[in-house]
């Protein structure tokens, strides 16, 4: 999907639908299967499986306590798939462009800049984790419970320090508030069709099954 505005809209609508009900999650999953490149946008198997394992662990705890564990697992897994698709398709500068388009050069620029830095930070964190993994391998440290705490501290400190450096750099370059850009977007007919279908699916999933048949009838 080329247009980041529609991509954001679809992600929000389908994520809300998936989170709200199992029916919404199934509808969002069907849309994900039909309208995205599917497995091509997924993260590496190791990353994906560990994220799914975390969801599964929470679902198990929920089910053990009498909660809707299976439903939670399905809903959150679909939200994860949507997030992976949105992240993989997002290109540098798109969040800033969308925020400025929606909220203007002052507040929109601020929010867009924060979003850009956040998304850029995810890629940097991934690199940092890779570096730590290599460093541990070189030192002969086996990943385990004892090594997790110092590594997490190192990663958090690195990120805080990097944020400070970026803030200082922005201040040095004279950044105070807002900025001026003229965002341009390309919208294909497939984008519109996929977005419309996502919005309709999201709307239908909010209704109960009886209401859906009344609407269709």
């Amino acid at each position, binding site marked *: 999907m080329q247009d980041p505005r529609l991509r954001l809209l679809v992600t929000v609508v389908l994520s809300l639908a998936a989170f709200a009900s199992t029916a919404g999650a199934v509808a969002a999953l069907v849309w994900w299967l039909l309208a995205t490149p599917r497995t091509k946008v997924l993260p590496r198997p190791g990353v994906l499986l560990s994220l799914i394992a975390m969801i599964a662990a929470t679902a198990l705890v929920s089910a053990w306590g009498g909660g809707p564990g299976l439903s939670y697992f399905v809903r959150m897994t679909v939200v994860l798939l949507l997030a992976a698709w949105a992240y993989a398709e997002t290109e540098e500068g798109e969040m800033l462009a969308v925020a400025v388009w929606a909220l203007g050069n002052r507040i929109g620029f601020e929010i867009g800049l924060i979003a850009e830095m956040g998304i850029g930070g995810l890629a940097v964190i991934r690199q940092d984790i890779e*570096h*730590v993994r*290599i460093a541990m391998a070189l030192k002969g440290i086996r990943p385990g419970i004892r090594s997790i705490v110092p590594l997490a501290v190192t990663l958090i400190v*690195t990120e805080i320090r990097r944020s400070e450096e970026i803030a200082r750099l922005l201040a040095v370059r004279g950044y105070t508030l807002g900025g001026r850009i003229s965002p341009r977007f390309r919208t294909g007919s497939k984008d519109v069709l996929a977005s419309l279908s996502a919005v309709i699916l999201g709307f239908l999933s909010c209704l109960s099954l009886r209401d859906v048949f009344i609407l269709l009838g």
Partner: protein
Amino acid sequence: MRVELADLVFSQDSFTLRGSGTFDEGVHLVSGPVGSGKSTLALLLAGLLRPERGAVRRHGVLTTQLLLQFPEHHITSPTIAGEAASWGLVPEDALALAELSARADDDPFHLSRGELKRLTLACALLRDPDLLLLDEPFSSLDCTAKRRACRMLEKRDAGITVVFSHERAVLPRVDAIWEMEEGVLAARGSVPDAIPSWQHAPPYLRCALEQGARPMNIRLSDAREALCRIRG
């Protein structure tokens, strides 16, 4: 003890690395411009990357240590002493060698890159592995620290040491020269015979060669000695 590259091929995006040859015991210098594939070759020799074709065969090598180009990528502990200990060393020894004894409890990220380089270099040398791979060990160091690092390398009297560097001013005494050019590894041979065919030779060696001198090794002092010999 030796490391053999058997028709090694490794590709990543549009970059392809190719190389064959044998690294025997001693100090080897792999020189070449930035981006020529030196770091990739270091990762392949360390076993952190897998070749697409061919193989890296280690004979009699029981322990391998790679010093990464960017020293901050080695950090896994919140204190300098802890960082030295994470290499499996007695922190006092490593900190003394790195001249950082007074900063044991500091955050490693508060060190300058040069200080951090000194620390990681000291740790890598103290581990004394059979195969020591040093990716740009002289970058971020001042001239004094570079000379000190060279002396430490020259003191290593066993095992295989491979120095990957584009450094052209302060170099250690080496036994063999290799060159990387656009992803292709070329063996220039043993020193001193390899020096005349070394394309990436530092300017002082080129100058000595142009004047008819034959330096015995690649250091500035070797070039000076060679010039003194021909001038009487």
